[in-house]
């Protein structure tokens, strides 16, 4: 996974969750970040889609276990 993808995703998390202290690594999951609840998850998805100009499908958006899987899905879409 490219370091660049996770860096961009990190920026999106900081912006959407309005928390400057967030530092993501591939193992980070919703348990690790207080603000990452189901409502904010929706906003994160929309922001990521917009930023990378991609569209996820409905089965993947609730299936990621952590940020690493999320980034892998982004990169898979970018390759298509």
């Amino acid at each position: 996974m490219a370091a660049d993808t996770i860096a961009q995703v990190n920026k999106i998390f900081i912006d959407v969750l309005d928390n400057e202290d967030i530092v993501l690594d591939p193992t980070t999951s919703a348990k690790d970040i207080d603000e990452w609840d189901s409502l904010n998850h929706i906003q994160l998805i929309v922001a990521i889609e917009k930023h990378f100009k991609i569209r996820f499908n409905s089965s993947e958006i609730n299936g990621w276990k952590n940020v690493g899987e999320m980034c892998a899905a982004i990169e898979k879409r970018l390759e298509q």
Partner: protein
Amino acid sequence: MLSFNSLKKNLKKNFSGLKKIKIALLSDSASQLLNTAIKGYGHEVGVDFEIYEADYNQIDLQVFDPSSELYSFNPDFIFINSSSEWLLKNFYKTEAHAQSQFANELLQTARKYYDTIAARLQSKVIINTFPEINDSVFGNYAAKVNSSFIYQLRKANVQLMELSQQTNGLFICDLAGLQAELGRQFVFDPKMYVNADMVYALEFLPYIGKHLTDIVLSITGTFKKCLVLDLDNTMWGGIIGDDGMEGIQVGDLGVGKAFTELQQWAKQLKQRGIILAVCSKNTEDIAKEPFLSHPDMVLKMDHIAVFVANWETKVDNLRYIQSVLNIGFDSMVFVDDNAFEREMVKSAIPEITVPELPEDPAEYLPYLRSLNLFETASFTEEDQERTKQYQEEAQRNVLLQTFETESDFLASLDMVSDTKPFDEFSVPRVAQLTQRSNQFNLRTIRYTEEDIKRIAADPNYRTISLTLEDRFGSHGLIGIVIMKDGGNKTLFIDSWIMSCRVLKRGMEQFTLNAIMEIAAKGGFEKVTGEYLPTKKNGIVKDHYANLGFESADGKWVAHVAGYEKRATFITNKNK
């Protein structure tokens, strides 16, 4: 449009000092994010929405249970948000033989919601039209089948609009219209619907927040009254001073069409009651020429209430237009193609709305329409007369300068007033005055048409509506007084409102005579009044003192016994 995220960030900002408005949000689908968008948009326009959000799909429970949170919250507004997705679900659950009655059933439900709420609360109710979903069960043939979903949905939308036309306290937030503008793809995200039960895509929510807020603000008295237009490259293509009458672009050919259609729109707004004014850097005679004699001009001189073309700054000229019309800067919209002029106006007079016009004239009109600048909460026949009234006012100003004394001038006007209690014909205009008048308004209490009807029928109240006519024309209904029996033989002036168009005519004194006469007839000994200051009603700060009332405990008192009728130049039509 602002992003959802930026609206969400507004929630952390300071809301103190903003206008407070209570809204109840009843929704058939998940509404937390909509709640955020509404609250966040409110901050953008200086409103602190206190929102009660009912749990998911509780509309019936909240409306029909008299002990529900809705009723204890007692909101100013109730937004009942119904989605097309639920509509479709319910339609499919309906027995085939009943599907042709689906829209009628829906209308009955909406009516029942409204009637139930109206029987218990004074709240205004806002419902939405349904964004279209074509379920493609019948294809295009659906149009020919009265039990098809799309037919029933469209019928429901029309019937809801008709219901709102018959019901003063019911308003429509036109989500169907928004979807037509923005597209289904933008409004609805299937993935979010399936995963999170979101019936609106995230970035559509700010639009709902804006339109809901537009409606609420127009009902509470904040809306645009005047459209000020630049000329060269805004009303026509080219520069009249350089290109001449033959050279400017307006009419059916080429880019001229963009300007013609913009003019047609402005003319429609004028018919609705928006005052049109011109503010142009030009030589006056040259600027007026197209209005007088260009065959393709839609706008003519008599559509324009104030025409200012000179070489002063636009800022000075806009101040002049504002002072002639006597309206707030915040009720004015200024349209100019020149970015430099726009910036200058915005920084000098931040209250004026100055749209960032696109560069391409073909985009002007679609862009201006998309801003929904001219939301209104009422429409009366008088609205259509407004431009004429402002033009007549300009003629009076010219006449005034030819008289030695003000009395001579007033006497020459042959003023007549139709003075009587509120009646069924005056109710809409009376309500409108309470909603729209900010300056000559002693207590700034807003009333709806239904409130006014109730007051007119209540024996504890006395009411006066006043018109004014003079030899130049009619001002229409320009003054109202609502008085309440305050006990102890005291008549309390609950509302005293006058249009600023008729200041300095002796109308205040004439109205006072009418008040005192009613008080005397009703056996009252005292009339009391009160001034509640707002940002805008400074002109009536000394109103009661000027009329000879005595100050007492923060209120003002006049005694009926020994009242000397004030001299005026106004004749009462009913005597």
